[in-house]
């Protein structure tokens, strides 16, 4: 009987395709809206991913990577002496006004890396280019948003707070959420570019000793220095939540995503329910012959779940194709976490099951006498 149920489903080509396309479209709608949302939120934390270190130490006031609260220079020594810390290096991030030699002025995000280790540089910067940061006045600029400065090339010069800076490399780092390009430099040079007086150390990057629980090391740092210490993903979350709370992205975009889910669910339910209702005469014939309600319900449920899974597969496949053809650093923020795919599967299957149940209710209560009438 179940084989027949599937044959009835597939052989009606046009209805079958309509169903599959409808559900695939619904899935795509949910997953791609969700992916853009996730991509956008992750972008708020892209500097954290680019830096890619296990532990971030910050002033207790800091609520996101974009909060630059300077700590005293001596925190570096104090962090280094904490139990379980393998190494700790400075990392500074400050906005500064820059002027290109073509006369264009704008804000840049000036990042200072540890002079010796250069830890925290994005993996995209080739080793050889990174080494050149030790040359006098050297900076590396990210390509994204650098158009504001006439898209400088290697060898071009800048002025930052009246101090000369020379571009030794242009790299594709991840797009972040600020509209400014990032300038990578060393910590000591960054201090020279910035107005004198402050120490400008915003972050200490830490690697825990191997075999020691990073969470434990974070606690140790907090207890012995009074600073905040986050593991990478905790800091990512803190940053995303900060941006979420302060920009209204989750609410505004969340409504769009929710709308996507509702529309997707409605399409799924509607197409499936229509299909079932159009089959009601045939199912009525089965009832007249003597099919039990239980068998009938299983047939309908099987049909509903089959189209649900096939449609979902195609929709999710299309979503990941979009993710694959979308260049890593394009304007389209796009990230599809596993959880999103599972959530979409849940939504699609839930609505397939719900509309199947609705159809079952209709079919089970159908008067088989109708098949005797013309």
């Amino acid at each position, binding site marked *: *009987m179940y*084989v*027949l149920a599937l*044959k*009835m489903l597939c*052989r*009606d080509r046009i209805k079958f395709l309509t169903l599959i396309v409808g559900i695939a479209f619904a899935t795509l709608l949910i997953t791609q809206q969700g992916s853009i949302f996730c991509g956008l939120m992750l972008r708020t934390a892209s500097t954290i991913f680019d830096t890619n270190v296990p532990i971030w130490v910050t002033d207790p006031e800091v609520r996101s990577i974009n909060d630059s609260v300077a700590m005293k220079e001596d925190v570096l020594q104090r962090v280094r002496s904490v139990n379980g810390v393998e190494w700790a290096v400075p990392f500074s991030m400050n906005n500064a006004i820059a002027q290109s030699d073509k006369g264009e002025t704008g804000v840049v995000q000036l990042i200072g890396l540890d002079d010796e280790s250069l830890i925290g540089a994005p993996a995209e910067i080739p080793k050889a280019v990174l080494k050149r940061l030790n040359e006098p006045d050297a900076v590396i600029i990210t390509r994204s948003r650098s158009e504001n400065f006439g898209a400088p090339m290697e060898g071009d010069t800048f002025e930052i707070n009246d101090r000369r800076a020379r571009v030794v490399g242009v790299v594709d780092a991840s797009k972040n959420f600020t509209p400014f390009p990032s300038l990578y430099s060393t910590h000591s040079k960054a201090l020279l570019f910035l107005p004198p007086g402050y120490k400008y150390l915003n972050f200490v990057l830490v690697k825990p000793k191997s075999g020691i629980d990073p969470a434990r090391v974070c606690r140790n740092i907090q207890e012995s220095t009074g600073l905040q210490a986050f593991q990478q993903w905790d800091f990512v979350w803190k940053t995303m939540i900060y941006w979420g709370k302060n920009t209204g992205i989750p609410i505004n975009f969340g409504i769009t995503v929710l709308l996507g889910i509702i529309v997707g669910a409605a399409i799924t339910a509607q197409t499936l329910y229509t299909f079932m209702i159009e089959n009601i*005469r*045939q199912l009525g*014939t*089965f*009832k*007249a*012959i*003597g*099919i*039990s309600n239980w*068998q009938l319900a299983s047939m309908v449920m099987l049909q509903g779940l089959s189209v649900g899974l096939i449609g979902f597969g195609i929709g999710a496949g299309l979503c990941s194709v979009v993710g694959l053809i979308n260049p890593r650093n394009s304007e389209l923020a796009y990230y599809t976490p596993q959880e999103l795919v599972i959530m979409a599967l849940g939504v699609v299957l839930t609505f397939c099951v719900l509309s199947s149940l609705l159809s079952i209710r209709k079919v089970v209560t159908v*008067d*088989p*006498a109708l*098949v*005797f*009438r*013309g």
Partner: protein
Amino acid sequence: MRVAVSLSGLKKSFTAGDTKSLVLKGIDLTIPAEEITFVTGPSGCGKTTLISIIAGILTPDSGRVTIFDTPIVAKSRDSTKFRLANIGFIFQQHNLVPTLTAAENASIPLLIRRIPQRQARRKAIAMLSEVGLGDRIDHLPSQLSGGQQQRVAIARALVGEPRLIICDEPTASLDAENGFHVMSLLKRLSSEGDRTVLVVTHDSRIYNFADSIIEMEDGQVVRIDLAQNKSYSNAMRGD
């Protein structure tokens, strides 16, 4: 004379809006086993209603239905099981599933009984050969003529070897020749298997296939005719 179906005091009314109309006004009837019985009467006199009640698909207001000594409680699980095992249906619209082939359509009653796919298909094909469609087993209903479709419906009704076959206007959508073929087929197959056939029809062209004809009018049985070639049947008079 063995009895296939016995009805007593059968009443049924329908309410449409606030008017209630009595469609069956107390029917007492005995239908003999292993014979072909026709039910005729003007449109709207309650024929379809009557067979729906016999099949246990429609609930009567009052009265009793017994088929082969089994009381039928409409819409109960037991009556559904009983129907599946003992009654084959041929509908006026044949009600074949358009997306299933002749063999698949004919195997439906067996598959509902959870008979394995291959076995069901084998039986369905054998039955289709019996009705002369051995070379059309993989055709879809849309690829068959009206008469052929009705023969698939006959194969479907007979494949489960039911003791009672109920037909509602089996020849209404067929021309005289095809109608004749379908009825000869039904007669041959039912006499081979000692089956009881109950046919609702308007079609006077096929009356001589009947062993007896029950005439209804306005929700009541008004006459029972025995075909002239038939010996007197006491059962019809309820003796």
